[in-house]
């Protein structure tokens, strides 16, 4: 049976909360990268994502993907979840890339249902899928191995201004309150609904819920501001980013740097 828009919205809100809970649980665990300095992981993962983006060699992308998969397993991301994530990513990126097999001009290597498949189309689809899988796995490793507060503080190492880091940290914190509030509003509405609403009523309900959420967000913003003032906020932003590089962090940084440099060098040749 087709689910109503309320149920689908509820499912989406719950999925977001689940994801955040799962990454918090994993990042607090004991894995290969969990204890490494967040700045090293952030810069290391970004370098490898850029290396994957730059690569003009499919074999290198394949090697990079395998290496990243090993690191993901060492970071204690459950294998079943990893496989599921890859399978879904593969299914959808492949679906996007599928028409390219036929629409890309080039050397014919076969045909399906009268449509010619080209070598260039195959290579193009393979580039897209392997890049997306490798980059998404690196992103997954980053959030699964780093608590959000440490990751946000690590953004300072990318020279993100302190005021922006303050806003990111505030936003991330209140996303969960708003997710919970929205979830409660939709649950409350569903529990009071009997029968089907007319389409115009459904739309009005959805937009009014969004309006109420906006109103609550702004009331919350007022409260946050009052709290900041009452604690003596004078416009100076201080962040808990007292990171210290230990020998293990330097080692990890060296491995990330070597892997990224090798990937750049091989990928561009």
């Amino acid at each position, binding site marked *: 049976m087709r*689910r109503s828009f*309320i*149920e*689908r*919205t509820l*499912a*989406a*809100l719950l*999925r977001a909360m*689940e*994801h*955040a*809970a799962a990454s918090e649980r*994993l990042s607090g665990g004991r894995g290969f990268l969990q204890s490494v300095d967040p700045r090293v992981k952030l810069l290391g*993962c970004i370098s490898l994502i*850029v290396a*994957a*983006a730059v690569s*003009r060699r499919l074999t290198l992308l394949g090697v990079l993907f395998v290496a990243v998969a090993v690191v993901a397993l060492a970071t204690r991301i459950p294998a079943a*979840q990893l496989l599921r*994530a890859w399978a*879904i990513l593969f299914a*959808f990126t492949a679906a*996007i*890339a599928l028409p390219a097999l036929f629409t890309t*001009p*080039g050397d014919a290597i076969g045909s399906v249902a009268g449509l010619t498949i080209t070598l*260039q*189309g195959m290579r*193009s689809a393979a580039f*897209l899928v392997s*890049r*997306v899988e490798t*980059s998404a796995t690196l*992103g997954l490793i*980053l*959030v699964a191995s780093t608590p959000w507060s440490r990751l946000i503080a690590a953004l300072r190492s990318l020279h993100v201004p302190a*005021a922006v880091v303050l*806003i*990111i940290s*505030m*936003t*991330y914190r209140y*996303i969960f309150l*708003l997710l919970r509030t*929205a979830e409660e509003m939709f649950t409350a509405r569903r529990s009071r609904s009997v029968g089907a609403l007319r389409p115009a009523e459904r*739309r009005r309900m*959805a*937009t009014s819920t*969004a*309006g109420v959420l*906006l*109103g609550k*967000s*702004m009331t*919350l913003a*007022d409260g*946050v*501001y009052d709290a900041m003032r009452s604690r003596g*906020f004078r416009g100076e932003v201080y962040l808990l980013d007292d990171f210290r590089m230990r020998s293990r962090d330097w080692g990890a940084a060296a491995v990330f740097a070597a892997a990224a440099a090798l990937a750049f060098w091989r990928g561009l040749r």
Partner: protein
Amino acid sequence: MSVPSLCSLCLCGEFNENTSAPNTSPRPRLMYLTCHHMHIPDGYLSPSTCASLYAAAMPFWAMALRRLKRNLMSRFVPMVALVAAFSFVVMMFNLPLPGGTTGHATGVAIAAIVVGPWGAVAAISVALLIQALFFGDGGITAFGANSFNIAVVGALVAWVAYRLIAGNAPLTSRLRVVAAAVAGYLAINASALVAAIEFGIQPMLFHDATGAPLYAPYPLHIAVPAMMIGHLTFAGLAEAILSGGVVAYLQRADLRLLCGSAPDAADETASAAVMRPLWIGVAALMVLTPLGLLAAGRAWGEWSAADFADPAARAQIAAVSNNVLPGNVPAGLAHLSSIWTAPLRGYAPPLLQHAAIGYLLSAMFGVGVVVLATFALRLLATRERSQ
């Protein structure tokens, strides 16, 4: 059982993961990816395109940051943070669309209306960064591109459209609801168009030694229609419904949130004064109607099938078109012109023999119909509101 379904709206490669029921497993899953229309993942754009779009977004981020720093001691900072959080959450709303389908919106027009264009650039960029970094929605290398498309282009287009259409209409005016809906529709389509162009230029610029595209594989003539069809219909409609609906709700519940984007809004009592220049303009245009009689020949491009068959008219068309003229009546024009015959054809009712009087009567009739239709709509709207 989990049934993933492909996002039908775009080329983004992201997807909705439809589950038949919310997951109640005690073990949380580290897998959250959902389609937000045009959040470009890593791998679709070349590094140089990504770098260029980071550079393109930079001046707008700098402006937004300047505004933030200037207002660091005011409520502006928590407002931007909470609008970012609101935008993040509202992107998950399934909005019911006409025809029984549903769609997602970004809330970019609402953000622009509530915290202004620079606040919206900051808020939507922050929401996109959190999505990319923590939730895997949109790529990290593509964050500059996503911010440029949605936060910069979207917010600025929404702001300009809203201010232009709403003008200084009263805060409770229905015109503001229409303005917000149009702003949302235009913003999301402008963002989609820019994203489509970014996708479309990839195969032209980046390919390997065999000629295989290295990134998004579809050229402009496929990428632009593929993106725009979904956004001109479903995604645009979802954004219009959300933006218009939230502004309509705020008009009933919290007018103060609309004040920021309407510093010169007229009072409700002054609405007649607001409309006065419009009526004066319409009256002036009616008085000037006879000027149309002075124009010789036909307007360029407004030719009928009969004109292409008439030698004198053909000579005129050729003279104003660099002597480029089809050999015969174009088949499509001949076919389509037979489908509908206007009641006042050539701006002259058939019962009147005098062309000039017919022309003037047609003009007055046309304006009258528009004015009557406007009054009827206004009457309906007022009645609905009073109910």
